[in-house]
């Protein structure tokens, strides 16, 4: 029906530079309002954490069966969010899907910032935060090591590796752009970009090395991303609790991670497109492709859900089955059904081209998908604890205002980091959009030549021209 191109090949390179650099300057009033809102949200969380730090974990309403709750659920949520940045920048890079080029930069920033948000949660959920470094294998006179059998230790390794690798990847991919910024900036920005661009002059040797290291990092990040969320799922799958001890958890978590991450990309896509007027770069066909990808992942997630339910149902493990029935009918039923509605029904909106091209709809849909994914994490953590083996300890617990304030504040923290990013760093990759434009132009030229060539060889009437066989 719609037959447009991903990007207009005729955009001048100077215009690309100008458009992206413009987005980094002169923040509007709404930008400052957003910054203040984010800081206020963080202040709520800091205050709540202050109470929790001084008094103990009690004010969060955690209790004996519910030793974990929203902190761990939110941790898994943010870790999941981080995965699609890697999907877009590394996997799509390797399979040469060049439509990722205008949108991968902010997705990658999202990866880094959501990891920075996620990393806070295992720390604040500790009873004795001040001893958190004991999880790491540092050299100690007492010869004490962490317990390498514990999935929480694997978590510490996995997350710190993934965070440092994805930060490096974000930075390396940005170096040519930082050089453009350096050449166009003044004042403190000039100094900052001069340091960060590492003396990039765009010569041949630099480009060759740059390509190599970028590809290397992409290859390194893909298995890392998959393993990180598998390890996060091991926090649950390695236990013996009903509803946690599930073999399909690693793929289920990875699918859920890509799902919520893609939904978040759509949200930020709409916002950046609107506020920075990036209509020429974040085009409707690219949105359509992202939406289709999200839809496919949503179906994978739904499928894995069905597998889990049916294996519990036909497995006849009494604890698991009771728990599944309780999820669907018990105190958490509204969360469970909202999760299934948002996660499996709402994505069907992405199947319609009209809706895929309607930005406000996509914004709302993507937010709903992430609500569903947040509830999914909640449904993993809470019901199992509320209904584990011992019936004496069955209990339904709702988090207190302290707990929710910290969860709420994490949104502000992520938002603040992202807002600072879009004004300090180019949120659209300038050099890669230029590449994309260049390659598509070349493609057009080649296509013209090819059609001419074929017309000539097919045309039997013109015998004077030499055919392919004769050559």
């Amino acid at each position, binding site marked *: 029906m719609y037959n447009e191109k991903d990007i207009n090949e005729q955009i001048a390179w100077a215009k690309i530079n100008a458009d992206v650099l413009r987005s980094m300057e002169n923040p509007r009033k709404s930008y400052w309002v957003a910054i203040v809102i984010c800081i206020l949200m963080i202040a709520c969380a800091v205050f709540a954490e202050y109470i929790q730090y001084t*008094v*103990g*974990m*009690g004010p969060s*309403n*955690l*209790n*004996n*069966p*519910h*030793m*974990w709750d929203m902190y761990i659920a939110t941790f898994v949520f943010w870790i999941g969010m981080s995965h699609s940045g890697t999907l877009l920048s590394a996997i799509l890079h390797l399979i040469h899907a060049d439509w990722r080029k205008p949108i991968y930069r902010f997705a990658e920033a999202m990866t880094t910032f959501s990891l920075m948000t996620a990393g806070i949660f*295992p720390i604040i*959920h*500790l*009873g*004795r*935060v001040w*001893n*958190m470094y*004991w*999880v790491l294998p540092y050299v100690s006179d007492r*010869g*004490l*090591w*962490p*317990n*390498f*059998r*514990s*999935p*929480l*230790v694997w978590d*510490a390794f996995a997350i710190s590796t993934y965070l440092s690798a994805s930060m490096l990847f974000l930075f390396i991919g940005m170096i040519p752009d930082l050089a453009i910024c350096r050449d166009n900036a003044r004042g403190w920005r000039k100094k900052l970009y001069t340091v960060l661009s590492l003396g990039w002059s765009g010569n041949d040797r630099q480009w060759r090395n740059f390509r190599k290291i970028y590809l290397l990092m992409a290859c390194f990040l893909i298995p890392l991303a998959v393993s990180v969320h598998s390890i996060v799922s091991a*926090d649950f799958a*390695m*236990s*013996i*609790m009903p509803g946690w001890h599930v073999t399909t958890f690693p793929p289920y978590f990875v699918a859920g991670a890509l799902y919520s991450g893609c939904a978040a990309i759509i949200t930020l896509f709409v916002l950046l497109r609107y506020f920075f007027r990036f209509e020429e770069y974040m085009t409707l066909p690219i949105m359509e492709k992202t939406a289709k990808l999200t839809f496919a992942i949503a179906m994978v997630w739904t499928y894995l859900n069905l597998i889990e339910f049916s294996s519990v149902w036909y497995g006849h493990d009494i604890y698991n089955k009771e728990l599944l029935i309780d999820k669907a009918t018990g105190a958490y039923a509204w969360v469970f059904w909202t999760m299934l509605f948002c996660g499996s029904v709402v994505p069907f909106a992405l199947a319609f081209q009209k809706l895929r091209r309607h930005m406000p709809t996509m914004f709302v849909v993507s937010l709903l998908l992430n609500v569903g994914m947040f509830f999914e994490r909640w449904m993993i953590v809470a019901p199992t*604890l509320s209904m*584990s*083996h*011992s*019936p*004496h*300890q069955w*209990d339904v*617990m709702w988090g207190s205002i302290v707990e929710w304030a910290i969860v709420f504040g994490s949104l502000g923290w992520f938002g603040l980091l992202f807002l600072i990013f879009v004004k300090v760093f180019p949120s659209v990759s300038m050099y890669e959009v230029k590449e994309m434009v260049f390659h598509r132009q070349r493609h057009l030229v080649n296509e013209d030549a090819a059609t001419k060539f074929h017309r000539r060889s097919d045309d039997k009437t013109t015998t004077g021209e030499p055919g392919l066989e004769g050559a």
Partner: protein
Amino acid sequence: MSLDNLLSNWSQYRKGHEEGGFHDYEHRWGMAIDLDICTGCNACSTACYAENNLAVVGPERFEKGQAMHWLRVERYWDQSELDHPEQGASFLPMMCQQCNAATCEPVCPVAATYHTPDGLNAQIYNRCIGSRYCSNNCPFRVRYFNFYSYYESSWPEPLNMQLNPDITVRDKGVMEKCTYCVQRIRSAKNKAKMEDRKLEDGEFTTACAQACPTNAIVFGDWQDENSQVAKLWKKHEVTRAVTKQNKDNPEKRGYRIFEELNIDPSVMYLERVREKV
């Protein structure tokens, strides 16, 4: 667990759990609890509070599920299928079962909970960072977390004088649980060592067993064939390291809770005998 140790004993370390952890146990402390003579009086729980410096959290926090009772007497009322609802509740004194293949041990990130050569599942308060994973992985839910700091609120002066000096008062953010009164075990062992003799059965017992008015709780060294607890286990044909006891003979009332999870608990319960109405 040092790295050298880990590397040199890797295979043994890996197989430790399947083969029952330590191979040369000094003792294997165990219990037998006869539910038929348990009256549900809660004396055991009270004794535990006094012996182990357990914090009294107050009614609101108890209601919220933040209580610290290492030994709780569970009551089960609704047993309509057993045909005796008018005979009242069933009681189940529940404390840490000191599982031989404890699920709490492998998940602790800092190895604050581990297995001792006594067959105990020990908790090191100083090492605990409060990730609470152990409690999440305990099917009995008998691990209790210090959600608050209780030193001032639970034992205001002069109540602090009644604290047991043999063990600590735990601060906020630390997991704790039944230790089988490890301080009593230690002092009895030390005494026997000083006097250069073997530890005898019945020389000491845990606070709960000591306080039980009907002697429903029997504590002892399961490895010592002449101990009362070993005899009871033998009498009721309860064996370790199996996931299901042979229950052909109704006279043999012994069973272990959740043993089908392959955790090998150290507490044997004796079923309550109830007459058909």
